[in-house]
């Protein structure tokens, strides 16, 4: 059975997020040959982004431009996306499981009285249905789910489903839809940027995380430097956050963020079960810890037993060296 699929695209600082391309790849499986429609909402100038969604596999794209869509609000975006859903009547909807995806999709699911399977890491065709795999208990276990009634509505976790190759020769229609947006009860008055380089933990390919062993706020400096050299983001264990070495927004674990980067470097993290739940599905794990008995070494692919303040500066130099030679 083929399905018409709508992708709710998402931008960050004016560019499409990678998870949007991953959502298009997921939509290929869900569509089973049906039409794939990219959607992008914002203030203005969205056509190049709509074209880009076509280059990454959408058959055509829709843009909704409105002054009230300059920054994301659930009310504004739900009106815009809701209008497109009413008009296009898709049989499936895919979006990234990001801050915006988590905020917007349950509202739409409630409005259209549909199911919603969030945080999908894998999907496969299964007879007349599509089977979606998602982590539960922060990755201590997984479940396979199907939608039994109505639209197949899913959000996908960043970094888990590979985007299709970009093909700039692909063409398709880009249409604009006018939407009336009423007064918004909720307004954003300010955004304070705390993530300096804009690499978000959930989308980072490399994460350098620190625990109690980092010992202080300043102790995180070499971790930031290592993350920068690797083009990654910095995370932390609950212990480090509780000790006030860093902000709670960096916390990885069963409370905090669940991440699946290509490379996870755990520095001075013992590896409590709650922390492991948040990162053990990373592709490659490196543990650096003074204590050879630390639990982190049970799940690390590579371990260095040693003082992180001695190891990390050398690691930074070695990686710089390799990058120069390459």
């Amino acid at each position, binding site marked *: 059975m083929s399905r018409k699929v709508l992708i709710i695209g998402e931008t960050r600082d004016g560019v499409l997020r990678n998870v949007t391309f991953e959502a298009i790849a997921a939509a290929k499986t869900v569509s089973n040959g049906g039409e794939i429609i990219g959607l992008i909402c914002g203030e203005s100038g969205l056509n190049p982004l709509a074209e880009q969604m076509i280059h990454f596999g959408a058959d055509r794209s829709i843009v909704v431009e409105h002054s009230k869509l300059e920054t994301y609000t659930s009310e504004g975006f739900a009106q815009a996306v809701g209008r497109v859903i009413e008009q296009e009547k898709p049989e499936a909807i895919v979006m990234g499981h990001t801050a915006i995806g988590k905020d917007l999709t349950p509202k739409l699911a409630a409005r259209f009285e549909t199911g919603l399977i969030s945080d999908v890491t894998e999907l496969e065709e299964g007879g007349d249905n599509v089977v979606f795999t998602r982590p539960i208990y922060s990755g201590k276990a997984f479940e396979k789910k199907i939608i039994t009634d109505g639209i197949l509505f899913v959000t996908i976790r960043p970094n888990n489903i590979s985007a299709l190759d970009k093909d700039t020769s692909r063409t398709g229609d880009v249409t604009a839809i006018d939407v009336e947006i009423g007064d918004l009860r909720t*307004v954003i008055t300010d955004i304070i940027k705390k993530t300096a380089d804009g690499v978000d933990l959930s989308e980072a390919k490399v994460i350098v995380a620190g625990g109690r062993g980092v010992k202080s706020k300043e102790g995180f400096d070499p971790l930031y430097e290592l993350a920068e050299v690797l083009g990654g983001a910095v995370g932390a264990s609950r212990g480090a956050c509780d000790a006030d070495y860093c902000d709670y927004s960096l916390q990885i674990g069963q409370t905090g963020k669940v991440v699946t980067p290509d490379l996870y470097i755990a520095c001075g993290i013992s590896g409590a079960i709650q922390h492991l739940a948040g990162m053990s599905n990373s592709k490659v794990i490196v543990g650096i810890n003074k204590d050879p008995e630390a639990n982190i070494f049970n799940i690390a692919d590579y371990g260095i037993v040693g003082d992180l303040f001695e190891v990390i500066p050398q690691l930074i130099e070695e990686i710089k060296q390799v990058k120069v030679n390459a």
Partner: protein
Amino acid sequence: MNIYVLLKRTFDTEEKINIQQGRIDEDGAEFIINPYDEYAVEEAINQRDQHGGEVTVITIGEEDSEKQLRTALAMGADKAVLINTEDDLEAGDQFTTARILEAYFEDKQPDLILAGNVAIDEASGQVGPRLAERLGISYVTTITKLDIDGESVHIERDVEGDVEKVDTQLPLLVTCQQGLNEPRYPSLPGIMKAKKKPLEELEIDDLDLDEDDVEPKTKTIEVFLPPEKAAGRILDGEVNDQVKELVTLLRTEAKVL
């Protein structure tokens, strides 16, 4: 103010997960209030102490959930409601839960509803926003600060590490993020008092719902554990040699550099 908290009973974060006959094995497991819902209970109590009113804590579940409701009452909530679905529902999903709560709130006048931003078990984070949509009220997710001034509400929320400042109005539903507050432990007098506080038990029948009204839209067909990770390699030698070997392995074997 009429303040409500949506609470879920979950596995303790210390628990290992085992699977028995295709289901998560709950035998002998410790249960707690979902940690994010604890922030919601704490915030509800603080807001009531500032602005007056009453805090009602609601959960949907089975008889066993009474324990977590009593804990919330011992922290300082005024009333608790258990919507017991044990005899009526075999399975449910977020649609089911939101639909039941919608029916519960039909004859209520909530000013503020608080929930955790996510439950640590199923981690869907859907029920709060779904309920707000059905009730026709605004919602703000992952909040880290809440100031209420008359009908106006000033909020700070965590958006992937950045802080977003939001102005909105009551009535409102919020979901709570770590950093919002430091949940208190129940005091001994609190625990004694909690035993006498009202705990109402309802079934979906009492909310004029039957099984068909709340039939889930999704179904879990399999639960499984991730493959065990093989123990890794502890490198040896001088730190300098270990670092060199690590970088080589990351490039040639793991291919992540």
